[in-house]
């Protein structure tokens, strides 16, 4: 077995033994089960005729199913994006500091595992966890609405994948922070700061006029230029989930920017970790 996969398995086993991650999976399952059992949708000739939640009729005008479900899928995409990243920041903040804790890192580094493999495996393990959770939630949602309304779409899956890309960039920062300081709190703080920064960076053009011309605006422009535009990615995810036209000019460039930022942060972490004494 590749040492990278071995470390990823180590991280996943560690994750699955944590109660709050199990509670999260149980929570998603419960939400999906409640929605599945309490929501009734009546579709006539592809149009949403009536819908009931917990027996109460939801008053909506008669619309085609795909149009009626747009706000639901859009809201779900935002929930998965921001909720997922926030949960990921909290839940995964101590994986890397824990692996690098005194007494454990010495043992791992004495095994035939190279340092880059240790970091790559940790990153891969956390991303597997994020991807698994996202796919579990979005698959459940698509299945429930697909079965009940007869409307099938891959939009929520793609939106979930975009959320994972966003989380990858944030976790890259958290992993790099762990190579500098073995603190779960600081890793979480770094992740949270970059999430907020990424949200601001997505609205940089709209926020720019609020800064006076000169040093202030230039500094804001320079800082937000290098940050991943996470809010723009969330918007794109919402549009895709709702099968609406994309507001961003180029999703490809947006993804490229987020990935370049993530790889850059990881490269810094790899360089720091490789030269560090434990």
């Amino acid at each position, binding site marked *: *077995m590749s040492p990278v996969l071995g470390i990823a398995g180590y991280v996943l086993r560690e994750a699955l033994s944590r109660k709050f991650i199990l509670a999260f999976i149980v929570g998603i399952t419960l939400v999906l089960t409640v929605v599945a059992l309490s929501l009734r949708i009546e579709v006539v000739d592809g149009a949403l005729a009536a819908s009931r939640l917990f027996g109460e009729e939801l008053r909506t005008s008669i619309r085609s199913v795909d149009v009626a479900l747009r706000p639901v899928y859009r809201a779900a995409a935002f929930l998965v994006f921001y909720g997922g990243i926030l949960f990921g920041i909290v839940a995964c903040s101590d994986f890397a500091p824990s692996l690098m804790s005194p007494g454990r890192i010495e*043992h791992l580094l*004495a095994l035939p595992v190279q340092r880059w493999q240790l970091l790559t495996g940790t990153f891969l393990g956390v991303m597997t966890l994020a991807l698994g959770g996202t796919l579990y939630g979005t698959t459940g949602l698509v299945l429930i609405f697909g079965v009940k309304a007869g409307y099938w779409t891959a939009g929520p899956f793609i939106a979930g994948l975009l959320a994972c890309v966003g989380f990858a960039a944030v976790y890259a920062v958290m992993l790099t922070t762990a190579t500098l300081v073995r603190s779960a709190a600081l890793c979480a703080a770094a992740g949270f700061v970059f999430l907020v920064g990424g949200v601001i960076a997505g609205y940089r053009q709209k926020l720019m006029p609020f800064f006076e011309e000169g040093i202030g605006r230039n500094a804001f422009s320079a800082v937000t230029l290098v940050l991943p535009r996470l809010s723009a990615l969330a918007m794109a995810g919402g549009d895709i989930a709702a099968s609406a036209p994309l507001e961003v000019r180029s999703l490809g460039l947006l993804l490229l920017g987020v990935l370049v930022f993530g790889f850059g942060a990881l490269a810094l972490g790899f360089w720091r970790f490789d030269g560090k*004494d*434990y």
Partner: protein
Amino acid sequence: MSASSRNRPPPGSSTFATVNSQAPAIEVRGLRKTYHRAFRKGGSEALRGMDLTVPHGSAFGLIGPNGAGKTTFIKSILGIVQPTEGTVRVLGGTPEDPRIRARIGYLPERLHLPGTWTAPAFLATVARLKGLPADRAMPQRLLERVGLGDAVGRRIGGYSKGMRQRLGLAAALVGEPALLVLDEPTDGIDPMGRMEVRRILQEEVQRGTTLFLNSHLLAETERVCDRVAILAGGRVVREGRLEDLARGGARWLVRFAPGASAEALAEAGFHRGGAEGQYHVEAEDPAALNVALDRARAAGALMVELRRDGADLESVLMGTVEAAA
């Protein structure tokens, strides 16, 4: 497993490091390590030009006062700490080589174990990371060997300190390593457990494994190791075979049965010792010793005990460190 088979790389490795069975297990030349801290000038020197050779197949003990650099040295030979200067060769290669590290078993001083795992799961993960082929019986076998056969189903978080230490030893033994590096292996283990650990270490040495032991329990080092190095101030100040280090020169301790004439024994070259019937005698070689004993017997003294009047390891350590200071 024979000594020669220990030199083979572990199964599962695709490429193997070249190993010379005659090469020392550990060879360190001019090793220096200076820890630099941010915003501080200079740094603290943990190792100051250390030279050491650990012969293949030996049981080697590293002793020294706190802050002597023992843990830094151990981390250097495992590639956990990168030396500032000097060369480190382990099992004929560099510690950075994963193929070399696959043949080393290491027990850190304070091993942090995943509390929610079971011991077999932990050992299986260590085996996987060592690139060993799957062996379902291995964890049980190793756990029984270190005396944890009854705790297989329990989570590690519920283990006592001694049990964790035993598990750490089992993890170090995964893959039958050619070199065992143990940092305080009996820390927290009860006296009976220490005897078991000692037995396991002696079995490993008999099978050809090189043992490198760092323990503050000098009696432990004395019982297990055949060679010892004393580290002080980041340098090896004394190194050699245990019996040579502890040897008290040409001085012997003899105990005679009650009734021996003190005057006659004094004439034969024996000086009265502290206890009843105990005497010391200087003899450069066995012939001189037997001449002195023949004189004592001729004077009617009956010998009941004879041993070299050597110092224990604690005295050797104290004397060496004080002299080096």
